[in-house]
């Protein structure tokens, strides 16, 4: 019996020492998870999540302070990818997928002040001083920063219209 106890103690001690050395030698300083999450986030630094930019948001998610559903422009698809990265079970049907939005300018009250053009994180606004501004719909992430700076309330967010190309059959509603 003593032989067995001795062997196991020796084995445990040796392996524990190995782990302690490995923890010291192979230490990672940056949180690799935060970097991985940041790579998934849209990167438009829009601040809708409540954190100053995608990097801060990613750190908060990695630390478990923020839910994976924090990013409105990313929507359900991003929440799902984040959940699979973190190994979290996520019922996507419970995620309130705010319909994707796009900024629309009212042409009659746009003064061409260029404030929105300067602030747009994805350069989705086309315009020059005292010229009517236009929004490149495909580049707009619907972050709403332009709406905040518009002095004439010419800009507003509208839900992206469903077209024949984007429509698909809804999920069947069955009680079972």
């Amino acid at each position: 019996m003593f032989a067995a106890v001795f062997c196991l103690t020796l084995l445990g001690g040796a392996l524990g020492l190995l782990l302690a050395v490995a923890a010291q030698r192979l230490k990672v300083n940056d949180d690799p998870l935060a970097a991985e999450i940041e790579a998934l986030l849209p990167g438009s630094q829009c601040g809708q999540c409540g954190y100053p930019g995608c990097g801060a948001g990613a750190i908060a998610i990695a630390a478990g302070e923020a839910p994976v559903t924090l990013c409105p422009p990313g929507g359900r698809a991003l929440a799902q990818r984040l959940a699979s990265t973190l190994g979290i079970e996520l019922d996507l049907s419970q995620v309130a997928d705010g319909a994707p939005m796009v900024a629309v300018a009212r042409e009659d009250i746009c003064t061409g002040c260029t404030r929105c053009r300067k602030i747009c994180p994805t350069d989705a606004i086309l315009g020059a001083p005292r010229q009517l501004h236009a929004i490149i719909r495909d580049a707009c992430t619907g972050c709403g920063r332009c709406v905040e700076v518009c002095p004439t309330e010419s800009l507003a967010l509208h839900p992206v219209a469903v077209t024949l190309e984007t429509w698909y059959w809804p999920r069947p509603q069955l009680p079972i």
Partner: protein
Amino acid sequence: MRIVHVRGGVRLNGRKRRAERGRITSLPIPAYLNVPLKQHIGAPAEPVVRVGEHVLKGQLLGRPPGPMSAPVHAPTSGRVIAIGAAPAPHPSGLDTPTITVQSDGEEQWIELAPPIDPLALDAAAIEERIADAGVVGLGGAAFPAAVKLRLRTRHPIHTLIVNGAECEPYLTCDDRLMQERAEEIIDGVRIMLRALEQDRSGPSIRALIAIENNKGDALAALKKAASAHPGIATIAVPTRYPMGSEKHLIRAVTGKEVPARALAPEIGVLVHNVGTAFAIHRALRFGKPLISRIVTLSGGAVASPQNFEVLIGTPVSALLRAAGGLRQPPARLLMGGPMMGAMLPHAEVPIVKGTSGILALTSAEIAARPAAPCIRCGTCVAVCPCGLVPVEMVSQIRGGRLEGALRFGLLDCVGCGTCAYSCPSRIPLLQYLNFAKGELTARERTKHKAEEARRLAERRRLRLAQQAEARAATATARPRQQHRHPEGSEATGAPDRTTNPQVAA
């Protein structure tokens, strides 16, 4: 020739009797025609006419913006009264860009190109004429026919299958076409063969016209018409849904299986519908664009089911009226067959190039029953012609695990609906599968957009950094000036204006 057994599938009650007797009749010209700019797979055509303009029959209305598209033509002479959104023949009931032509009843053709012998043309010229005539696959998918023929340059083709299977119940448009216009179909096939055989050494391409064995008259008519041409043969295939599916027809006729997510030409086979062959004949022999097609009008609610030659853009309501109206209000209006057709929101949608039939079904025909729990009987697995496991895919989708459904081969599903048709519990399996495919595509789109947004944000960050650097450089070069007029330059926004390339441009 030996027919290879295809797994799965189901024998359906054809219900073709009511519409298959009468000859194809032409419809009176409707008061107005709605011609959608996108009736095909690919980019929508761009309008080349203006509102108020008078157009002649066969005149170009919309030009394709790129190679993967098709033009649309005026179905009759008249005036363009609107270019804008109109309801699409689609279950969503959404609008689609449409050109509305008010007919003048004159039926005045534009000047057609002088007739030439298409069999003397080279392949590129044949394909160009097919593309210019706006010919798309008339079996239902509406893939541009010329694009499909051009695949010969990428993959060596050894067999051309002409699809006359028409496996959907009710539909008899291909059947009537084959019976009444067999010579013209054979001519279209010869033109396609001519295009495919161009600059090709080795054995010549064989053409097989595959027809389900429940269409004896059509088979006989085509056999007779093809007898003069040794390269063209007819072949009877078993009546079993979904025999008309491209992949399954290839398997039955050649014994070859199209690999998962590959195109048929990759194994040397090209499949065209008989209606497409007829449209190619018309386009090449007479220079006439595709402005009409044969449409089966059938279903229990229809007073006198029949096949009509209908101008593209004719409202479904006009077709119903001209055919003697309905016996009773339909419980469901369908475009296409009952298995894969699209539910129509109402009858004010146009007939398009891909419309094979309009079905007005009664509630007895639909026989809708509420779904019951799955009893795991495995019927859907046994009947799936693609060898998939619908029960497992759907249970994954129900649990919100779409990736799980992907692992079970969701993308190999052709959406034939055999599983949902056979399910004893009436579970809407096909709708689950279609929902999952749509949801996955939508997620893919969102992901792509997020990646693009990140790229744009990164570009902007770099640009702003460069501008700041340039400003700093200017400031160090002229420290005094900068010191003297700091407010002035700030107020007018001068630094921004001089250094921002967007504004300067």
